[in-house]
């Protein structure tokens, strides 16, 4: 995903000289082309994320459209108050990109597992939260966030689903992948791949009809699609590489309550825990029950129960 985001960024920086990219000393081998082409629009501000977000706010207050780049929890949790007070309260054009959502940096340990960022960023007023699932959607996500203006959080990762050519991604809109009336699996980010595999298992091995909804934008969430699917299936599974508290599961459950829609919802995600176990993203997904087999089992259990 990262390369496609950077390509989009280079193109946009060429068209718009007010675009400025800040990195917190991360992105070795990633930003060389950008820095060479647009040296006045690129700053490695060093290791200091609180300062980085403050500087981004100052630049944005002076008319710049600022992209901030770092990895894992550094550009979100480390500088959360700067995002809240400096960027969001001031309605500034600052897009924060975090590479390495979920267990993408699984082997590096707990500090590098970004597993609460979706919930926490979602709780900050005035910021859009986007977690694309594919290279192409990551690329358009950045452009869409820039065009929309204001604050945005873009969570990207190395794993990505293959591009679905017939899918057009737009901010605030979810994409349904495949038809199916038993189960709707709402998933966000790279883990959508697991949801798609689970769907195939459900159809092939269990005769369960299932649709997958690539949520793409956690905030503002696609209320219409959630309500529509909820009216057409027997149960909902949400899938996120994130704490279940306050993330996609929370967002879907809140919406269903608000709209007074009664349907069973099972959340697949982290159960309010950290991982002291390391491993590849694939391994950790499986270890914590976020893989296709577990999603498939969650769906079967839900259908059995209701």
């Amino acid at each position, binding site marked *: 995903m990262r390369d496609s985001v950077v390509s989009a960024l280079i193109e946009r920086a060429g068209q718009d000289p007010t675009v400025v990219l800040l990195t917190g000393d991360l992105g070795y081998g990633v930003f060389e082309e950008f820095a060479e082409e647009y040296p006045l629009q690129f700053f490695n501000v060093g290791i*200091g994320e609180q*300062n980085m977000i*403050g*500087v981004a706010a100052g630049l944005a207050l002076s008319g710049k459209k600022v992209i901030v780049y770092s990895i894992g929890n550094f550009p979100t949790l480390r500088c959360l*108050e700067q995002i809240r*007070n400096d960027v969001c309260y001031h309605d500034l054009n600052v897009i924060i990109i975090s590479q390495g959502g979920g267990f993408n940096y699984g082997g590096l340990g707990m500090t590098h597992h970004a597993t609460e960022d979706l919930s926490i960023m979602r709780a900050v007023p005035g910021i859009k939260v986007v977690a694309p699932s594919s290279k192409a959607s990551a690329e358009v996500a950045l452009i869409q966030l820039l065009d929309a203006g204001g604050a945005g959080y873009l969570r990207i990762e190395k794993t990505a689903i293959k591009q679905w050519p017939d899918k057009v991604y737009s901010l605030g809109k979810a994409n349904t992948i495949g038809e199916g009336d038993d189960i709707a699996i709402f998933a966000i980010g790279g883990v959508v791949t697991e949801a798609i595999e689970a769907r195939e298992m459900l159809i092939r091995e269990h005769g369960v009809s299932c649709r997958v909804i690539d949520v793409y934008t956690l905030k503002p969430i696609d209320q219409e699609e959630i309500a529509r699917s909820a009216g057409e299936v027997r149960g909902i599974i949400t899938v996120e590489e994130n704490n279940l508290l306050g993330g996609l599961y929370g967002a879907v459950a809140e919406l269903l309550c608000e709209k007074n829609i009664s349907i069973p919802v099972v959340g697949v995600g982290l159960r309010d825990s950290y991982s002291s176990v390391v491993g590849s993203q694939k391994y950790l997904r499986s270890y914590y029950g976020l893989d296709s087999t577990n999603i498939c089992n969650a769906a079967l259990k839900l259908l059995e129960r209701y």
Partner: protein
Amino acid sequence: MSSIELAKRVRINCLRMVHAGGSSHIGSALSCVDILAVLYGKIMSYKAENPDWEDRDRFILSKGHAGVAVYAVLAEVGFFSKSELINHYRDGSIFSGHVSHKGIPGVEFSTGSLGHGLPVSVGMALASKLDRRSNKVFVLLGDGELMEGANWEAALLSAHHKLDNLVLIIDRNNLQSIDTTENTVALESIRNKFEAFNWAVMEADGHCHDSLAKIFTTCSTGRPLVVIAHTIKGKGVSFMENNVAWHYKSPNDEQLKQALKELDR
């Protein structure tokens, strides 16, 4: 209006506001009134009738708890009507205890949590350099606020980028919320610290308008400038001066009367 007269009016407004609103931090506000009066009365370029004028100098109050002083000075120099000030801290008011920009012309940036103003000012100064604007960015920090780590991240970056359009003013009144800075977490030598960070360092009597004005017009080519302004917390009201209790207390009717009498001398 002279900056001395401006400072006097701002002090009176601040006292009336905290009295009417029952709010805290009058000591912190009075400490920096002279700095604000010199900046808005003598130094900075701005257009009160066009607060968004691109080439204006910027002022950011990082010690947001002294917000009443900013509201008062902005009203006095014509950004909005003085009659609005008295709403400060009241139910439904936009004039919050810590400075907020929403709906208030002239306030560049909202603060309240310490350690935010300098990084933002660095971003503004950097933008001015990129756009080849000759304006300056002034940012005022409390001395205790230097304990916030983000300031030192910003201090490194601004020296690295040689931001000589950035002026950091430290309101060095020696008192923080419970005790002196030196009894809490010693800051001295502030001068040596900033010199080590490759900043130009100057010191002034933070209540002497002439010295402040002279220093603020100093050109520190190639380096950001820090001005250590030696001040008295609660300056101008005898019973508030150097008394940490006025970080919290709000003057009652009698105390307001006494304070206004002293300022009128």
